[in-house]
């Protein structure tokens, strides 16, 4: 319990929800098993989330890269998304979630994918090319301090620290 930001009841609730994802016969062994990604994505909290794949990728510690999550990964995820997590931790993980190509910085392609995730699936939901250009230009203008065309972690954390909505929107409650 010290290792996460969750309270005792939250951890117990998380255990209950996690074991529901496993098939019946394996439920007793929940702590040591890994749940495949497809099962995790059936959780209502993640089902509607456009970043579901990135979340699984970031929090999964599985060695074979199949993005399956163990109970500890699950707790980790809930802890970061809980109300009491510090904004440092949240911004760190947010950076990793938004970094679609895992290269350590947010460049134009990452930002473009991010905006497309936000506006939704489907052709009519996307912004036009001109609007996308204008938007990315504005974002980089606001946050890229060293003007290298990408946003690195410190710039990201700096921007997030001045963003009033981040704390209230970057949370998941079971």
């Amino acid at each position, binding site marked *: 319990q*010290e*290792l996460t*930001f969750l*309270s*005792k009841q939250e951890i117990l609730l998380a255990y209950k929800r996690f074991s529901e994802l496993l098939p019946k016969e394996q439920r007793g062994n929940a702590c040591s098993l890994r749940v495949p990604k497809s099962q995790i994505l059936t959780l*209502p*909290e993640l*089902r*509607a*989330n*456009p*970043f579901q794949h990135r979340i699984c990728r970031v*929090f999964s*510690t599985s060695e074979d890269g199949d993005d399956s999550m163990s109970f500890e*990964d699950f*707790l*980790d995820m809930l802890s970061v*998304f809980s109300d009491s997590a510090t904004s*440092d*931790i949240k911004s*760190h*993980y947010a950076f*990793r979630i*938004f970094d679609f190509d895992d290269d*350590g910085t947010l460049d134009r392609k990452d930002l473009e994918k991010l*905006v497309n*995730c*936000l*506006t*939704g*699936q489907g052709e009519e*939901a996307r*912004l036009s090319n001109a*609007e996308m250009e*204008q*938007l990315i230009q*504005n*974002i980089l203008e*606001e*946050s890229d*301090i*060293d*003007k*290298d065309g990408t946003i*690195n*972690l410190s710039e*990201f954390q700096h*921007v*997030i620290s*001045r*963003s*009033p*909505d*981040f704390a*209230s*929107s*970057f*949370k*998941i*409650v079971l």
Partner: protein
Amino acid sequence: EVFLHEETLPAAPVDFLQELPSYQSVLRRRAAAGGTQDRRGNPPGAAGAQAWGPQHEGGELAARPVREYPLSIAEKRRDSQQADIKYLSGWNQWKRTSSKSWKKVLKDIKESLSYLELWRHDIHSIEGKLGTGIQSYFSFLRFLVLLNFLIFILMFSFVTLPTVISEYGIFNSSFVKFSPKTTESQCTAYTPSGNKGLVYFYTYLKDLLTGTGFLEVTSLFYGYYTIDAALLSILTYNLPLAYLLTTFAYLALSFLWIIKRSASGFKQSLVHDEDQFQSYCNKVFAGWDFCITDLNAAWLKHRSLQYELQTDLEEERLKRKIADRTMKEKLRIYSLRIFLNIIVIAVLSGCFYSIYRATLFSQENSSVSIRREIRIDSVGSGMDFMANLLVQYLPSIVITLANFIAPQIFSILIRFEDYSPAFEIRLTLMRCVFVRLANIGVLLFSLWSQIHCADDQCKACGYNYKLYPCWESTVGQEMYKLLIFDFMIILAVTLFIDFPRMLLVTHCSWKPVQWCGLQEFGISDNVLEIIYGQTICWIGTFFSPLLPAIATIKYFIIFYVKKLSLIHTRKPPGRPIRASSSNFFFLVVLLIGLTLAFIPLGISIARIPSSKTCGPFRNFNTSWAVVPYTILGFPTGLQNVLNGIASEAFAVPFFMVVCLIMFYFIALAGAHKRVVEQLREQLVMESRDKLFLIRKITEAQKHT
């Protein structure tokens, strides 16, 4: 790209890049967070790991708690176990364990306290289904319920309870009633008939809805508290003073609590407003509400995000266009705006005038004015009863109509004024707030024009004693009627408009009906509605001490009604409302309502002569007069101190000192802002220097 990734590093020339301290720290964090990536063999790596983990040099306190590091749980466990193994002296170990158990105890207490929070589960589920914008509306409603409940407890325990105890002689108490000092019998002739004799059943219903008849003589209204002091066993309880002080107390309580709640929102709003140019980053990085679990709500959120981004980009383009406007265009737009503002003022005056006339009509034709006659008049047929009720409720009806029509007119007018979308929204909102709050003011003003003495006939008592022997009760009744009517309208709209509409839309697939669709849940409209109700409650509590209880019950029921209505019959707003700014906005408007409530109360307490026939202030000229009277009873030293505080010799220097302090803080804030700007510039310059130097070095190394 000068900062190269590990995979694309060429040979020797740029090896030094790996040694740059900033790069090292990025690597350290990524390696530690990644866990499975193999750590590059860099000498500062070991030092980094040490600096990363909790420090225990010399047995000092641990750095940050382990969970604040962005590592996976397995690694955190390893780190904390390692830290535990390190050598700690016995004292430090005991300190650590005791602080751990103390923190655990605190956490347990907090957890159990959170169970007591009202509606915790409901608001959580609303947050999950519909996002944080709507959740802020419901937590605002909960705040109002608690506030009203506290005000009720205050008024009840200090005003109603002593009166009731002494009137019924519980605990061997009694009360003292002085006879009024003026011997003018006409001022004191007041017989509130509480339904004597045989009356029709619907008289009770009418009395319940309008506050007259049997309700008038209960402790609901001011007229009941007609005692001067209560003698409870040994102490003498000065009721008039208590009444006045409790009024001030509940106003102060509301004021302080609202300010406390808005303090955090204010800081954020101030920072946010300064950084107008950060709005894009905020929308993109913090735009998705991770709480949403419902697919429909998610789809709506996608749409609203797309809409918001497009609107912002369009606004930016519009701003550029406005900057390019010609002189002729500007002239045309400004004259159009002036014309439309004149129309707005005309609409407002129309509203005010109609409320004024309606109040006058209602007062003249209701049974108030025929109170002097025998009550048989009011016992008529059923039609008479309905007509009478309608007349009584006329001001409330007119106010509600005005509150409904005026915002519609405003939202149509503003389209022609060619403002940027954000400003449009704000201006319409401000106009709606003004309409709602000013309507109450006009109602009170028209009541006072009646109560006030027009001719010399009633100069003897100072107010219009013929029609209103106990005018405070009358004002209380009007507030009571407003509150009840507001409540009924909210219920009626939900039952008779929303539910049928929903049934129609779900079962009838006719094109126009589907196009109409469900009505949106307009957050600002709903918030203005409840703020309007709360302002009425604040004003009315002085005249009707049990009004907060009614308001508490009303808001309690409204919570469930709105929740049901939202889930089943309405769709969430298409335009997004951000949680942080909306919380602050609600509280600011509430504060405006409270300040507006001060004005009528202040005038009633300090200016208008209190009625001589009823109420605790019978023997004083005005309600405020009880305070100087009490001060005269204090010892001379205290009197001098109080007189000194209230005199100009104290007030003027105090005011000047406050102004000085304010200017100091404003100057400090300006200086901080300048410092931040300078630091930002320096940062940009430093990074440019760094890039330049690295380029130079790479070139130099290439040549050698």
